[in-house]
């Protein structure tokens, strides 16, 4: 009979656990529908050389990272140092997508804080951003040799994330055919 009094307590603890888990989830992390799908096709001018255009097809056969950033994005400033350090390791090519920015602002930013990108693409209208489902810069995509998106990071890349998740994944993708 005593167990009866434990029922409300059990329900309460159950609720507590449910709410606790709910608090830990990040509502900004929307599951991306892009994982395992081919990277959307695009052609964009380069940031440094407006007359040179780039298409994602040029990267076929390589594992590469596409980092979406903007000079107005404060969080991008935060992850920038990590990206500069990462680019020096030369694990895979890192390309930048300057998103909804002004050309002079984007260039100024790279001059001031260093340029980690092998190539920088200029998406002034943010249309390529829409095709890639970008909704909160910075975002980073990992694309494999077949041109398939394998990973998407929403928000900043930290050294820990690089070490624990991204670099192992890149090596695994590099090793596969």
């Amino acid at each position, binding site marked *: 009979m005593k167990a009866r009094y434990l029922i409300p307590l059990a329900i309460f603890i159950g609720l507590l656990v449910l709410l606790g888990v709910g608090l830990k989830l990040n509502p900004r992390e*929307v599951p991306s529908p892009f994982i395992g799908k081919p990277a959307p096709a695009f052609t964009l001018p380069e940031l440094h050389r407006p007359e040179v255009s780039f298409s994602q097809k040029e990267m076929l056969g390589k594992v590469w990272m596409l980092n979406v950033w903007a000079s107005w994005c404060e969080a991008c400033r935060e992850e920038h140092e990590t990206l500069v350090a990462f680019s020096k390791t030369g694990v895979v090519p890192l390309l930048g997508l300057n998103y909804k920015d002004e050309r002079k602002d984007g260039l100024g930013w790279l001059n001031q804080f260093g340029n980690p990108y092998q190539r920088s693409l200029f998406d002034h209208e*943010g249309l390529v951003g829409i095709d890639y489902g970008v909704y909160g810069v910075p975002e980073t995509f990992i694309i494999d040799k077949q041109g398939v998106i394998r990973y998407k990071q929403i928000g900043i890349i930290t050294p820990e994330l690089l070490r624990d998740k991204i670099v192992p994944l890149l090596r695994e993708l590099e090793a596969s055919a």
Partner: protein
Amino acid sequence: MPNLIRILFISAALFSQAAHAAEALPASDDPALERRVTAIAEELRCLVCQNQTIAESHAPLAIDLKNQIRDQVKGGASEAEVKDYMVKRYGDFVLYRPPLKGITLLLWFGPFTLLLAGFAFLFIYLRQRRKTQQEEAPLDDEQRARARQILDSGAKPE
């Protein structure tokens, strides 16, 4: 004096509404097109400020997406096609009415299941209570006499 304050409050509220309406100027001259665009945009979640629809939000991305919807509707796309375009990019999360599928079963039917469970609990509880009430044996003569005695003595306080 309180009346004056009330009037001030009401006029402030009206004014802010008017200001809000002025912000959301339609971007094309065709009211029928704008109505369709808004109807679709009201069904889609803005990913930057997640508790607003694309129609309500003034975030740059929401404005871009509204323009996308307008272009597509102008090009003859149906509402389903526009939604499909958004889901391909942002997942089911953009839809304010999530589709019915395996992963959303709990979302759709969880509340009804809880309601049914509540009713089942209530039903069982009530039936059990009635049963225990019926099962209580009526008093025998001796108990009745004792109860009478207690009641009588209690009725005459000293």
